């Protein structure tokens, strides 16, 4: 009988007290931790004596940021031609860098908003740093279109403000939609991030030992005193901002993709761009979060808060979004063939086998083949392999934008205007410099602000449940949480 119907003989495992056993998930906070231990672990990072290593890394980052300053000064002095832009390839590294950085930012919003709405509790120990990453990535991204206007002092012409031309911006242009999308995104991300910081700033204020710290953190904490009447509105605001950020983040990369998709250029004019760009953005952003988190948890001994489970979950998201991106690449080729349009076909064959094929195959190997290794648990849980792979993913995603922009532009409809883009020194230094800006801001953040959301981590600990028996998945906990979020 057991051979014919094996599931019949399976006995349900029971605990010692004969109650049904549940399959336990690994805990989100490792070890027996008290609330105070969590406060200590996170606050110590901010309160300890400035580590030498931090100063060393910061000086490198600031040096790179100075390179950015020098490159931009040069650019403004000489003109956009410094960037090696030429007639058919007018966007080149500029918009490549812009889309690259905006895309990286998207993981932060995904973690803080979308995973929050899906009640993925594991997000709590990584959301703060990921949101900070979003802000700094948006700052790095804005450098590009800001300076691409050439005469930076006229950048306000992008906004609907009265100006000396007595005319308004063109509301039918996707580039203007982008101005609204990116500035809204930056602003909302900042508000969301600061809202989340307030209770933790209060914690730092209450632990302050020096007057200066008390004044600074006290001012920023705005007199937060953990009142439940405040928490009630605060949690509602958090939920609403998460609900607003979720469509917002999807809209931002959709509108970024409109910069391309709304044009009539073969290789750009495709309806798959919005979802494909969003998937690619999440893909690269999670890769950047893993790269940064591996370093932060190691440097500051936060391995018990940012556990291997967090990293493994992020690897799974990279696998999923990487597969979506791979599917989109395939579908683009299929549509180019299926459309019967000779210009489309030419563009895609040229993309894979033309002058920029080296960039195309770099993109394919980094973005399509690399993430497939994450099917293996051994690879998903190996920190060194993960670290290298996530860097490959970001290299691949940078090349994706370069391939889309440069390879679609360099072969125009008229062969007489064909060309080839070669980056100049200033292109390289500007790109390296934006990393400097990003890293400088991130290093300052992990030194002076709590890199892990203290109050949120406490909220998902088993002993936080007012009705619980120290059981994370207790029914009542889930139910009240669903009702009040």
């Amino acid at each position, binding site marked *: 009988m057991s051979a014919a119907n094996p599931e019949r003989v399976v006995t349900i495992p029971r605990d010692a007290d004969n109650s049904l056993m549940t399959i336990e998930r690994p805990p989100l906070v490792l070890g027996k931790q008290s609330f105070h231990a969590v*406060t200590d672990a996170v606050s110590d990072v901010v309160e300890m004596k400035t580590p030498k290593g931090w100063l060393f890394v910061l000086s490198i980052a600031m040096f790179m940021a100075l390179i950015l300053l020098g490159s931009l000064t040069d650019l403004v002095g000489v003109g956009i031609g410094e960037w090696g832009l030429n007639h058919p390839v007018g966007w080149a590294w500029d918009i490549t860098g812009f889309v690259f950085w905006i895309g990286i930012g998207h993981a932060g919003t995904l973690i803080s908003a979308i995973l929050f709405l899906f009640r993925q509790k594991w997000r709590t120990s990584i959301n703060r740093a990921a949101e900070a990453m979003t802000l700094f990535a948006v700052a790095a991204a804005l450098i590009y279109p800001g300076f691409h206007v050439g005469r930076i002092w006229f950048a306000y012409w992008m906004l609907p403000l009265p100006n000396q031309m007595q005319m308004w911006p063109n509301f039918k242009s996707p580039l203007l939609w982008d101005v609204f999308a990116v500035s809204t995104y930056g602003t*909302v991300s900042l508000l969301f991030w600061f809202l989340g910081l307030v209770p933790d700033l209060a914690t730092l204020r209450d632990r302050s030992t020096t007057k200066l710290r008390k004044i600074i953190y006290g001012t920023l904490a705005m*007199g937060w005193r953990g009142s*439940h009447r405040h928490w009630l509105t605060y949690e509602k605001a958090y939920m*609403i901002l998460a609900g*607003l950020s979720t469509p917002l983040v999807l809209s931002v990369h959709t509108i970024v993709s409109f910069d391309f998709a709304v044009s009539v250029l073969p290789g750009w004019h495709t309806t798959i761009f919005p979802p494909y760009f969003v998937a690619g953005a999440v893909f690269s952003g999670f890769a950047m979060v893993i790269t940064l988190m591996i370093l932060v948890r190691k440097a500051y001994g936060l391995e018990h808060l940012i556990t291997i489970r967090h990293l493994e979950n992020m690897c799974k998201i990279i696998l999923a979004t990487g597969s979506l991106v791979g599917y989109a690449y395939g579908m683009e080729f299929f549509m180019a063939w299926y459309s019967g349009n000779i210009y489309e076909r030419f563009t895609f064959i040229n993309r894979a086998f033309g002058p920029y094929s080296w960039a195309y195959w770099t993109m394919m190997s980094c973005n399509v083949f690399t993430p497939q290794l994450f099917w293996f648990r051994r690879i998903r849980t190996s920190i060194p392999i993960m670290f290298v792979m996530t860097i490959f993913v970001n290299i691949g995603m940078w090349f994706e934008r370069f391939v889309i922009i440069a390879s679609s532009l360099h072969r125009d409809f008229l062969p007489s205007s064909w060309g080839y883009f070669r980056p100049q020194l200033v292109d390289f230094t500007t790109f390296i410099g934006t990393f400097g800006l990003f890293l400088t801001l991130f290093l300052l953040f992990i030194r002076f602000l709590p890199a892990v959301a*203290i109050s949120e981590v406490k909220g998902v600990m088993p002993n936080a449940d*007012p009705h619980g028996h120290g059981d994370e998945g207790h029914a009542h906990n889930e139910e009240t949480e669903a009702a009040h979020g």
Partner: protein
Amino acid sequence: MADRKTDPNVAAIVAWFQTPADLYHACEHLRDQGYRDFDAHTPFPVHGLEKAMGLKPSPLPWVVLTCGITGMATAVAMQWWMGGIDYPWNISGKPPFALQSSIPIIFELTVLFSAFGAFFGTWAICRLPKPFDPVMQHPTFYKASDDRFFISVEAKDPKFDIGKVKATLEKLGAQEVEEVSP
């Protein structure tokens, strides 16, 4: 109520509990006793505590809705007037104003205004920033943002009576039951 023992120098009575569960039960007890002006101060939002305290839901969503509608109306009005009336451009023969091409900016401004509503609305409803509050004078109140679960009963509560409140809190197992001045 004339026999209530109050003191103009006492703004509230503040005490703390070790666990969220103890605080939860204490809040339920105070609510059932008919207290209204009491508050909990916790390092993280204790789920369901608003039920134990008998609080009404936050009015914030209405603020956000109002702001969102304002944002949407602003975006429509701006694009219609600027692009369609004040300085129409002829670009590829497209109409000066059309709803379709206005959707992205309408969406973005709706979100932007709603987010401003949620952010500034929160501080307005909470009456923050407020650098000083009487409860902060409790000797160990700095631990309310760490690992202790505070409760405060304010003097403006109609049932407030220093002796009774203290006795109730002590009976509930509260520690360091202290009076704080306004």
